[in-house]
């Protein structure tokens, strides 16, 4: 690629310069959007065996690239992401392709509108080139629950990339595009970031619109970027963030750009979460986290041990609240509204039950039934209401902790990427993979995973969390930490 910049030299393992550099070069005319799109499509073709991509949006991407190049030639301004190719998880509604959420029941679905997040990126000149694989409906921690295929970890094809945004994370580390979009409901951006060595950002709940994203658990669903650097994540977030009339749960964004990052670590109070550093933490992860803590200390941060006593309950809360919301959100797949419908149904009732039996995979069925159970008459108070109330307790503990510290720190996952098939026989064991990520979703706070080292050539992720709406502070601290490591 022409005009390789300094920031590209900082990352010799990527063929893509930083997102801002690419856009600047397209605006300056030294790079062509069309060439960038071809480069991304060629990389997707060359790395097919990793099964990161469900479908490309090649035709539409080429048209958009040609339009951007023409505009640039005519001296028109083409936006802060001019010509930057990106890949969207296939639970984002996009023009130019089907949107399947990696589920059989949504096969054939072509959306009449695009996700607001995609619209905002396109308005700044970004170009969606492909749709990434995921656990069907984002239910999972490994992408093994995709109804189509299992994405392979870019560092070891016998291992999972994490999930549910496993295709997006793998795509970024395979250099298929400079950045990808994911969704994070219980850790689905941060876990694959940890397992693949990418940066995964889960914003404050409500900061990025969920309009046009296939709903999973609406009270914890968030949209965020997977990138190679914190700087790239901040830029992509800055463009997506803010109120959206199409999603009434969105919150006001900061007036200051999320790319204007406070990176001073000296004097920062960082709470190391005691419950995350206990016996459940693997020896493949622990030394990297401890080494990072030591470096932060040397950089002048004040390290304080923090206990959040209800944290060990977070996963139980999550696996009540999430399936409850899933069972409700997936009720729309009834064999009427979307393309897939059972062909041997004799009446309406059978059309419902057979379409759903044939179209949903095991994990969707499992979550629908758990959700149905915890919401059913006689169990609602004992399960659902209780879980929502323990959620309040957790929120209160986080608020109390953030009175004493600026950030919370811990590992993103208890282990490095596991082998494909290692947990598929045991759903509960698979759920436990999310044990360090679900709390941020239940509480609503922003959280990020950045690569902190490798064990046996497999990446380890460090997780930082900040108070509600402190996204800029979190990204700033993450950028400073990234530079230390």
């Amino acid at each position: 690629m022409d005009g390789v910049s300094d920031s590209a030299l900082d990352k010799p393992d990527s063929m893509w310069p930083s997102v801002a550099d690419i856009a600047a070069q397209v605006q300056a005319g030294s790079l062509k959007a069309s060439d960038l799109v071809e480069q991304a499509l060629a990389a997707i073709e060359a790395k097919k065996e990793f099964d990161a991509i469900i479908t490309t949006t090649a035709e539409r991407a080429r048209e958009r690239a040609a339009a951007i190049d023409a505009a640039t030639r005519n001296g028109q301004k083409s936006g802060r992401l001019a010509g930057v190719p990106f890949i969207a998880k296939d639970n984002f509604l996009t023009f130019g392709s089907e949107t399947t959420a990696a589920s059989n029941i949504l096969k054939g679905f072509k959306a009449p509108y695009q996700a607001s997040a995609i619209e905002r990126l396109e308005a700044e000149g970004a170009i969606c080139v492909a749709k990434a694989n995921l656990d069907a409906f984002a239910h999972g921690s490994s992408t093994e629950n995709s109804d189509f295929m299992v994405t392979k970890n870019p560092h070891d094809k016998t291992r999972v990339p994490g999930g549910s945004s496993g295709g997006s994370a793998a795509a970024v580390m395979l250099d298929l595009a400079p950045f990808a979009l994911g969704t994070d409901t219980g850790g689905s951006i941060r876990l694959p970031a940890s397992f693949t060595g990418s940066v995964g950002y889960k914003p404050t709940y409500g900061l990025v619109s969920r309009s046009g994203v296939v709903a999973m658990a609406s009270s914890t669903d968030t949209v965020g970027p997977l990138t190679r650097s914190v700087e790239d994540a901040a830029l992509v977030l800055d463009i997506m963030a803010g109120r959206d009339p199409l999603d009434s749960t969105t919150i006001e964004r900061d007036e200051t750009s999320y790319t204007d990052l406070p990176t001073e670590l000296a004097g920062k109070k960082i709470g190391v979460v005691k419950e995350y550093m206990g016996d459940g933490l693997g020896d493949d992860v622990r030394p990297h986290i401890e080494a990072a803590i030591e470096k932060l200390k040397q950089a002048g941060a004040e390290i304080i041990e923090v206990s959040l006593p209800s944290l060990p309950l977070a996963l139980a809360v999550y696996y009540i609240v999430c399936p409850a919301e899933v069972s409700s959100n997936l009720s729309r797949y009834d064999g009427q509204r979307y393309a897939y419908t059972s062909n041997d149904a004799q009446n309406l009732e059978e059309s419902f039950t057979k379409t759903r039996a044939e179209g949903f995979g095991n994990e969707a069925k499992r979550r629908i039934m758990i959700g149905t159970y915890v919401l059913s008459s006689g169990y609602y108070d004992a399960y659902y209401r209780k879980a929502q109330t323990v959620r309040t307790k957790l929120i209160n503990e986080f608020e109390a902790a953030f009175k004493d510290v600026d950030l919370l720190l811990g590992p993103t996952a208890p282990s490095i990427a596991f082998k494909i098939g290692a947990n598929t026989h045991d759903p509960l064991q698979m759920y436990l993979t999310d044990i360090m990520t679900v709390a941020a979703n239940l509480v609503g706070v922003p959280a990020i995973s950045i690569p902190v080292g490798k064990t046996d050539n497999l990446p380890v992720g460090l997780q930082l969390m900040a108070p509600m709406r402190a996204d800029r502070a979190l990204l700033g601290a993450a950028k400073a930490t990234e530079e230390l490591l």
Partner: protein
Amino acid sequence: MTELTREDVLKLAQLARLKLTDEEVEVFRAELSEVLRYVTMLNDVDVAGLAPTTQVTGLKNVMREDSVVDYGISPAELLRLAPKSQDGHIKVKRMIG
């Protein structure tokens, strides 16, 4: 109750409009029971004085203009996206009677 019976699973499947095979009933019976056993850790948590959380933003009654937005898509294009259509309408399976 943390050990589900076959009847429980069949009742859940019926409520959730899922047709399960006999094999699935047994697999889900065991798996769902295990998950429900795991979440019993919440039973004894003291939540006296706490209200349940349904959302985390604190937003209330978010309003917007009740106005038409032009999405730049024609009825004909919308119909083309539907699985089946006929005479300018989206065609679905018979739902009544």
